[in-house]
């Protein structure tokens, strides 16, 4: 870790958080300042630690599924997908095609919902209050679909190991298409509000730069990696749930700064709509649940399965001892690992930039602390 030299007499230690609106939850950052310039940071995390991995060892495979929704609660559907895929891999079963397509639609809707929350809160941190109300309005439409599908809006527990519990409802396709038709012009509206906005550009461009090499060194994935110019997305690199059938682009940036991450995420929402539109056209008929036993006892073994969550690579490492409960359940959380790069990005920036940098990482503290 590079040490920055500065005069001792001018060092000021400032505590930011845990109760600070721009830290997106209970994140505490100890800032070492020289005037207004950040010379070093230290993250203090763990305020939301609930021992999710320990709980996993003490629940059966099915019982644990709702818990994963409570890690990244802005993207509960993605968490559930990753967990179900990991256990299915351990059992060596695959969800039927109808379930896979429905999963893709719901997961991509959730990616848009997660990005909308990021956009609203990020803009709010920078000082643009209006977008927050707009994105909440649009997110509501997505949550309504979740509610009609499975009864829950936030912590959905939408999927089951082996497929789905609920058949999609009668007007599902129409609802999804209507949301897609609604969202595209709305995203253009956010574009008009922000993309060319002088203040927005001034606050974001050249801030929190993390180049491709740094991203790899820090294990940073997701939109942050893509903004640094690395065209890597697990949906393309190692497709799961039939993502290889869909035609979509991986948006990338050039500079790896906060502005590029903004444009990458905006484009990702459009690409998600593209995937949803393709998926909803051809939901195959058939069963929604694979033939799996009621009591799950995966054979002795271990797997690591990861998916492209809205925030980056979300992985599950599960060790089975042949019993009904995982022997070890490890979650590889993208927020936790991406947050580690905060120090690199914030050094040399101003305090106000730290707020922008926290926003651009797109953390959810529930997932950082687990």
């Amino acid at each position, binding site marked *: 870790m590079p040490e920055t030299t500065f005069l001792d007499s001018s060092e000021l230690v400032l505590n930011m958080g845990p109760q600070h609106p721009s830290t997106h939850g209970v994140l505490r950052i100890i800032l070492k300042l020289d005037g207004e310039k950040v010379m070093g940071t230290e993250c203090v995390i763990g305020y939301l*630690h609930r021992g999710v991995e*320990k709980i996993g060892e003490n629940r059966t495979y099915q019982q644990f599924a709702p818990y994963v929704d409570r890690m990244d609660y802005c993207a509960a559907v993605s968490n559930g997908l990753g967990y179900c895929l990991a256990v299915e891999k351990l059992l060596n079963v695959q969800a039927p095609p109808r379930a896979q397509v429905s999963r893709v639609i719901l997961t991509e809707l959730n990616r848009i919902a997660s990005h909308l929350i990021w956009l609203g809160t990020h803009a709010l941190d920078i000082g643009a209050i209006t977008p927050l109300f707009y994105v909440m309005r649009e997110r509501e439409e997505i949550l309504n679909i979740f509610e009609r599908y499975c009864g829950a809006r936030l912590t959905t527990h939408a999927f089951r190991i082996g497929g789905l519990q609920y058949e999609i409802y009668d007007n599902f396709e129409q609802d999804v298409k209507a949301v897609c038709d609604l969202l595209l012009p709305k995203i253009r509206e956010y574009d008009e509000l922000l993309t060319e906005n002088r203040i927005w550009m001034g606050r974001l461009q050249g801030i929190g730069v993390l180049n491709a090499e740094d991203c*790899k*060194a820090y*294990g940073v994935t997701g939109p942050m990696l893509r903004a640094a110019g690395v065209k890597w997305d697990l949906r393309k690199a190692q497709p799961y749930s039939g993502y290889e059938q869909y035609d979509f682009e991986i948006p990338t940036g050039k500079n790896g700064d906060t502005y590029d991450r903004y444009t990458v995420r905006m484009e990702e929402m459009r690409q998600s709509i593209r995937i949803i539109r393709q998926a909803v056209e051809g939901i195959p008929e058939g069963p929604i649940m694979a033939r799996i036993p009621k009591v799950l*006892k995966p054979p002795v073994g*271990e797997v690591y399965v990861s998916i492209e969550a809205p925030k980056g690579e979300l992985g599950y490492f599960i060790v089975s*001892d042949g019993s009904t409960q995982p022997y070890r359940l490890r979650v590889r959380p993208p927020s936790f*690992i991406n947050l580690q790069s905060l120090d690199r990005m914030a050094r040399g920036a101003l305090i106000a930039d730290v707020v922008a940098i926290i926003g651009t990482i797109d953390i959810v503290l529930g997932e950082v*602390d687990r």
Partner: protein
Amino acid sequence: MPEDQKPEGQPPAQARPPAAPKPPAAKVPASMATTPWDGELPRILKEQFGGQIQEFSTYLGQNFLVAQPDSVIAILEFLKLEADFDYLVDVTAVDYPQRPERFDLVYVLYSFARNERIRIKTRIPDGYKPRTATTVHLTANWLEREVFDMFGIEFAGHPDMRRILLPEDWEGHPLRKDKLITAMDDRWVEEHLGIESGH
């Protein structure tokens, strides 16, 4: 457990010990049904590290190797420089309290160039201090801190070996199998929260 069920050449440490808080699982094979992992990469690694890598295996299409604890960092470095495994995905541990080498330390690696994922496993006894991977991958910093926090495995040469999720003056390491799910640091809870910790 019967020795004859195990694949040839595997050390007995592969066997699963019964977990203390859980009912014993009977009737299932006690070791992973792995197949040998052959190919270019294992060949190069065998050439380079010889007997320091005990096992190359594949389970459900996922490749992993088991190495001596003191050679892990050299392997990580070799893989990064010579085989493009430039992204350390995860570092974690698994506790087997009945085994002499109590912990499995697991490193998940990915290569962008090869689009390939492998795992490096090593078995270490309680109290052994493995060398830090931060010299090879910066991301190991927080990951190793979490392993220390949860399992009490200290990493030698780590720049900042402190707890990360639990409070710094907390006692005990919750993901060890001898800690039950309800176990808490009673002293800490009483001191800081002013409540009985419930048991």
